[in-house]
């Protein structure tokens, strides 16, 4: 990957602001930039609605098919330090905005290409870096001017932007289904007390093989990818459920100190068996006494959470049992059910139970899941059940839905929309180009160069869609010059239209963080003049 740079250091005149440097350092920087650009080129083709997917086969033989830049880069395992920084860049975009992970890398690649040509013409790297910083600040004001405010109650617009994000994914044909789903699930977890904050961990995504993506649904309640314990013929459907989440075990007692029971004769053995039965029965009676009829049992490492015997008694008592609930999930479950976890049988009281209209086991595909519906006083959480015909589609659907959720979250955080389809990038390029003419000196020269770098996004978009990139970009530039700020590439029609009217919109936060993050990363790469191997 790290192509060895051609040693072609040009002869420079040593006037002020020119950069006198040794060839070795020049090479380090050149190698860094080339490596980083190689990474950018690798994900370039997956940009946009007609971008292609990548198949990644990992070292242990798993295959992933994805269109998500962050995922591709994560799995690539690059070694070159500068290339690694680009991978990190896409990861930060993922955590900051959730979408635009490919765009940010492609943009950084284009900016690096410009920097390289600036460096070869003798501009000092810090001058380039300072110019980039100014450019980023300016670019953000331009983007903010372009943006359209949005009301959080405007569900239609939210759906549009989620759909734009989904359109570039494998699951794009289902965007009409997934987009409203993403919007609804985010809106349902927004706390009116803190309308700015959305905690995506309140949205639980459950994947289940079988069916098609069409069958994906939003569940108002809880979904477990688990079976009800049937071994003793317990119920699989309970109405008017009283649900307890327990963190203790219904099994023969076990002390923390090592224990052994000494059996010396036959009658004693009989007695022990009876005692064990009584012990469990006693526990179950206490549970039954509160009216509880659904039990969620936390997984236990130290001892069996339930035994066959206790399952048998629970089934007799008509209690539905779901076992092996992970400890991490307890918080989500209790929040949803509006109940408290119970860690000891002595604390088993009615006020700690949760109530729901119906708990039932549903068989879908080859497996079964448990749904809890009609929860009383439900917390602000949502579950989404994703279906897919194979694991690859299922995983990709989950990633795409995550992106869509992030997009909606961005809109909740910062309530502005911006046009998609390359319109903001062309507008940036045009405005920054004009701005460069007002500036003087090195800055103007650098900014003029970088302004053109932004055209890489519409260029790649049209290239990936099989259009003639040069024709499209020049026409786009022309339309923007005539004042059509929202003109963008309509990939479906293969022409340039007002992209806002075509409902191709994205959150402002995604665009601004793309610009800030990619410029920050490029500046960092530019400032490096040596790679030192250390312990």
């Amino acid at each position: 990957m790290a192509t060895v740079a051609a040693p072609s250091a040009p002869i420079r005149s040593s006037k002020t602001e020119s950069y006198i440097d040794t060839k070795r350092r020049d090479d380090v920087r050149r190698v860094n930039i080339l490596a980083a650009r190689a990474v950018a080129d690798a994900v370039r083709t997956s940009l946009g609605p007609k971008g292609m997917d990548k198949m990644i086969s990992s070292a242990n033989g798993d295959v992933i098919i994805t269109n998500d830049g962050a995922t591709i880069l994560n799995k690539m395992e690059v070694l070159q330090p500068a290339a690694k920084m680009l991978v990190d860049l896409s990861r930060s975009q993922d955590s900051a905005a959730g979408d635009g992970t490919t765009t940010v890398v492609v943009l950084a690649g284009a900016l690096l290409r410009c920097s390289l040509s600036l460096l070869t013409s003798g501009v000092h790297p810090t001058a380039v870096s300072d110019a980039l910083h100014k450019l980023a600040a300016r670019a953000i004001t331009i983007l903010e001017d372009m943006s359209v405010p949005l009301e959080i109650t405007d569900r239609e617009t939210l759906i549009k932007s989620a759909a734009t994000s989904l359109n570039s994914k494998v699951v794009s044909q289902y965007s009409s289904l997934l987009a409203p789903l993403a919007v609804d699930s985010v809106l349902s977890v927004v706390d009116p007390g803190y309308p700015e904050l959305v905690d995506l961990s309140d949205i639980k995504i459950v994947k289940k093989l079988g069916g098609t993506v069409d069958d994906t649904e939003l569940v108002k309640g809880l979904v477990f990818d688990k079976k009800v314990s049937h071994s003793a013929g317990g119920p699989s459907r309970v109405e008017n459920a009283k649900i307890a989440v327990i963190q203790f075990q219904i099994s023969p007692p076990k002390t923390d100190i090592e224990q052994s029971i000494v059996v010396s004769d036959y009658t004693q053995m009989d007695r022990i068996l009876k005692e064990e039965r009584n012990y469990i029965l006693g526990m179950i009676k206490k549970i039954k006494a509160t009216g509880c009829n659904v039990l969620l049992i936390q997984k236990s490492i130290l001892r069996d959470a339930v035994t066959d015997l206790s399952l048998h008694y629970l089934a007799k008592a008509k209690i539905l049992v779901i076992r092996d609930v992970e400890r991490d999930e307890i918080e989500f479950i209790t929040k949803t059910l509006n109940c408290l976890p119970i860690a000891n049988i002595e604390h088993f009281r009615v006020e700690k139970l949760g109530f729901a209209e119906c708990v039932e086991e549903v068989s879908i595909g080859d497996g079964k899941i448990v749904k809890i519906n009609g929860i009383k006083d439900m917390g602000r959480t949502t579950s989404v059940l994703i279906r897919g015909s194979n694991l690859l589609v299922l995983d990709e659907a989950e990633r795409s839905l995550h992106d869509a959720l992030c997009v909606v979250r961005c809109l909740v955080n910062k309530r502005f929309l911006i046009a998609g389809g390359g319109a903001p990038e062309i507008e940036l390029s045009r405005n920054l180009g004009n701005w460069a003419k007002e500036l003087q000196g090195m800055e103007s020269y650098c900014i003029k160069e970088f302004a053109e770098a932004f055209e890489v996004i519409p260029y790649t978009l049209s290239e990936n869609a099989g259009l003639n990139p040069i024709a499209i970009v020049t026409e786009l530039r022309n339309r923007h010059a005539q004042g059509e700020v929202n003109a963008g590439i309509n990939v479906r029609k293969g022409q340039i239209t007002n992209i806002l009217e075509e409902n191709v919109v994205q959150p402002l936060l995604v665009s601004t963080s793309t610009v800030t993050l990619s410029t920050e990363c490029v500046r960092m790469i530019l400032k490096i003049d040596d790679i030192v191997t250390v312990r």
Partner: protein
Amino acid sequence: MAIDRLLKDEATEEKGERARMSSFVGGMAIADLVKTTLGPKGMDKILQSTRRGQNITVTNDGATILKSLHIDNPAAKVLVDISKVQDDEVGDGTTSVVVLAGELLREAEKLTMTKIHPMTIIAGYRMASECARDVLLQKAMDNKLDNEKFKSDLMNIAMTTLCSKILSQDKEHFAKLAVDAVLRLKGSTNLESIQIIKKPGGSLMDSFLDDGFILDKKIGVGQPRRIENANILVANTAMDTDKVKIYGARVRVDSMSKVAQIEAAEKDKMKEKVQKIISHGINCFVNRQLIYNYPEELFADAGILAIEHADFDGIERLALVTGGEISSTFDNPESVKLGHCKLIEEIMIGEDKLIRFSGVEMGQACTIVLRGASVHMLDEAERSLHDALCVLSQTVNDSRILYGGGWPEMVMAKEVDALARKTPGKKSHAIEAFSRALQSIPITIADNAGLDSAELISQLRAEHHKEKTTSGIDVITGGVGDMEKLGICESFKVKQAVLNSATEAAEMILRVDEIITCAPRQREDRM
């Protein structure tokens, strides 16, 4: 014949001229390595780890670079050491000290070529450094009495320190953060109570100072999310069960019901422990170890906020700032010192939830939350901020300041030159050399910024020939500028430490005339 076998096999010996050459070369090589990071337009380095994972670090901090190098040359190790000491003592100037020492060695090498004895050079260097120190003392300014001015001095120092780092673009923001944090300390140099939390995401400008303590942990299930006037018990105790820690202890029983009884007894023991903890009159309990489900529920029932698995660093700091003590037994509630704070609440930074303790007893405590694009960026930002905090906390105690931008070096060089002219004998050559070495710092700053250093230095020297000048190198415009107007300041203590340790290190290396490398320890062949 006996002489041949004086040293063990494989042990080597370098003598006289060769030994000196090898230490000179080593010292200069190290200095040249970090030279390019000096000054506001210095470059960064990537440190690529050869360990597993091949982690990379991007840094501009001389001490960090030198610390992680593989070095075999003994003289080079001395330079790495002085940079480390500089980092520990004053926190900044780690690059300058190495560059200056390297230049002193380079000058010394030239002098030894002309057959001047190393001891003469050392004597000359000593006189020169003494003279330089006196000049610094005379020229240092002290604004301690004038509060307004003192604060602006601090801001200037912070900005000067930060401008050579990654934070340079947002230096005003960070300088303000650092100054606020240090002023809260009220003169103590204990940086422990300033906590730095790094959270990826957002941009550097989103970083902020919070006057409280932030713990990166979660609150237990079903417990209050917000507590006012909290009494905090910080503990390091096992909250699973008090296991009998005698090897092989086991219970022998003959019936199931007895096992159940023992289990119940264990539960009771736990309950008792929790009761004891609750009886301290607390409403927040922070434990370093895990809190199991059962005690967690008991705490939830008692309306106590329990935080489990806080890392050791975290609880020590928490105990410090809330004024409590870490306890591990709970039998004597009256002897346990509880921590207090006005408000505990859950806050959200980026995507993560954290717990904030505000209004803590130790008013100095504060937390700086750093946000940034990537982990590399955050790490580097933390290092830069740490440097700034160190320098500031030193300056609060010793408030003397100097101008920056090569000004102190030029002032010293001028006086040292004057001394050289007055001094008879061979020593004067060494003194002159010292002055040249001092000038190399502004030269390097100019070179790194891509400026014409020869031209600038001659202008600067002419400027400094006048009395009471304040001119230094202005890297931004690329000329000679007025440091007072530009507000470029440095702490006196940093400069003094740079001068002293660089001279001492150079002197030490100069004295060497023989290097004996011991035979490597025999390793067992594991093949």
